[in-house]
């Protein structure tokens, strides 16, 4: 009786693939301005820490995190998706956000995985991400040594 209706998602590209996060898990999308500070002893997917209107947000390269290569973006390119609720100090670096749209997974993945399921949009596949799992995997990139 659950999930029969599609849920609105933020749609974006990262590492050459398309991904989606539920709209209600995203606080805002920003274009990174100032240089990032490097985070000591962080994992390979961590791009640094960024100043967002006086708050400092950790930035993780989504493509590297989910293992589809990493963004080879020039400075000043790309967008950072800031997560919402108690995850506001985490941002995901993506190539480009291209919209918001209703999605429903055609195929569901087991819980715990960062991928919640695969959906379809404009006839092509799009990977639906689980914000909690993404936050948890991101956290594992910090304080490693």
């Amino acid at each position, binding site marked *: 009786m659950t999930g029969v209706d599609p849920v609105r998602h933020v749609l974006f590209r990262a590492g050459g693939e398309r991904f989606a996060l539920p709209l209600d898990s995203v606080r805002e999308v920003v274009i990174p301005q100032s240089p990032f500070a490097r985070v000591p002893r962080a994992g390979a997917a961590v791009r640094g820490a960024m100043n967002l209107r006086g*708050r*400092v947000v950790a930035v993780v390269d989504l493509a590297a995190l989910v293992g589809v290569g990493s963004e080879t973006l020039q400075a000043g390119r790309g967008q950072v998706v800031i997560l919402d609720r108690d995850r*506001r*100090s985490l941002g995901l670096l993506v190539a480009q956000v291209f919209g918001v749209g209703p999605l429903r997974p055609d195929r569901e993945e087991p819980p715990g995985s960062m991928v919640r399921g695969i959906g379809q949009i404009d006839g092509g596949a799009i990977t639906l991400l689980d914000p909690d799992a993404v936050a948890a995997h991101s956290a594992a990139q910090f304080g490693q040594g």
Partner: protein
Amino acid sequence: MVSQDLQRYLGLFVSESTDKLQKLGQGLVRLEAAGRGEEPLAPIVDEMFRHAHSVKGMSASMELEGIKEIAHRAEGLLDHFRKTGDALDPASVDLLLAAVDAMTGMVERSGAGENPAAPAELLSRLDAGVARIHGGAAPAPPRPETPAPHRPTPAAEQVPLGLRRRYTIEVEVAGTCPVPAVRGFLVLKKLSALGAVLEATPAAEDLRAGRIPDRRVKALLESGEPPAAVEKALSQISDIATVQVKEEVHHPTPPPAVAATAQPREPEVGGRTVRVRVELLDSFLDAVGELILATARIREVGKSIPEAVRPALDEGVDRLQSAVKDLHDKVMTARMTPLALLTDRLPRVARDLARRVGKQVEVEVEGAEIEIDRAILDELADPLTHLVRNAVDHGLEPSHLRELSGKPATGRLSVSARRERDRVILDVVDDGRGMDPEALRQAAVARGAISAAAAAALSDRDALQLACLPGVSTADRVTDISGRGVGMDAVKRVVEAVGGALELVSVRGHGTRVSLRLPLTVAVQPVLLVRVGEEVLGLPIAKVHGAAQADTGALERSRGEPMLPYDGGLVPVRELSALLGLPRDAGSGPRQVVVADGDGARVGLAVDALLGQEEAVLKPLGRPLDLVSGLSAVTVLGNGRPVFILDVPRLGP
């Protein structure tokens, strides 16, 4: 085992009854406030009775007999006090605490599929408790069919006909509700069934248009109904996160004699207030921080423009700066929050723990009304709980030992706050066994945190501070011998991260005092900025002893580490770049070495350059950055770049 049909409602049962039990527990703590005359007693008892009643009903419908049996007795006990209006005696409070704890555990187990039986010992204690307050008469729990919870209070029944009450009502729609405006609309509709809605924000028209800022609806209701009826009506609406019903100070029409000469009085209010979300306050502060940075940047750029136009610009920047400073002060004032938010739950924490470890404790809280910045308050929650737990667990002796040493059987724990100019001093004091400086010296040496010679040179007072070194207070046995438990280093770290200081004073056999000296507001602290490769990092000046230039390759080595002669001693020098896993400048010339306090022992940190001192607003690290060890806070420089503040003792090798 919960029966198959009911299985699917188990989750709901667990969450709801856990919530009720939690509220019941909170009620017991609020009773203490009522005992001091700070809050009326009757509504608290009434509410607790309701919660016990709900748990009984829910557990009965889940066929969880064990929980029901306890809830039934707790309800009976509360019903007595509800009817007599007597204050609860300590024995009854303890009984109810025990009942709440037992039920909480049982509810949790039922969530895992069990159907736990009630501990017979607890049931008989409860029965005895009920019998005792009834003066030995047989227990008389309320008749189950009495819908007691929402019975109007006697005061309500005495309200003469036609006399209207005024309520201010604020309702927050749950974040999970997909259509908050419709919820809000329903709230207004239900209120209008009770009386006249005189004001509503947002108005019904706005709600119709889907507008409901912050998911909140505020309304002014005039109604003949008692508060319980208003609350009940609201409680029947789903998807509501919080409800506040406040009856306005009631000023009935004055008697005619007075009416002839006096105007009806306005409700007395000490300045109009609105509730603001903490988040919003945080964003104000962040925005003001940005303004400060932007102002500094304009001033910086101004230095490069021709002299002739400089004065006009400088004057403008000066005015901007003073306006921003003023704004900053006002925002800081708005962020001040009473310590009560933290200290109110401490008596319960202490009491619970004491009961578990078989000790007795009396907790005294003073100065809870003192206000401190919200951000500091949030950071203090865990450390303060920790200090209280430590004091009960490790500081206070069991009653029989206390009596042997001529102390009262019940231990005393006091949490007191006072203002001292721009600081708040928060003391956590116990009258327990005190700490042993010698045990701490040995533990610190055993942990390799300090050399035997250095340990011996410490005064007893300084040796006590060793308890705050990482690893020392966690050493086996030291906990019991020293009278302090785990994690004093964590407490100290948090206190220092918000710009405060921690001090331990202890007298063996007499007790321990932990003093936290805290800034009133988010601290502006001087930091030393250093550069490693392309990264800039900050060290709190308070932790820096000095700096020296040294060719680290040419220094004497001890256990592989270069030793810097400094201030008559030798300080081990470590490459900050290596500690942090960051690249450094190429080349092998002399290095800049910052000598910093590694807590107990000094350490030299080799860096590529010293950039100077700066006043910085330190911010706590949010998740996941707080997981990185060796960092204590972060600040933002004038160029907008974040700079991490180092936590020297935890940089580690």
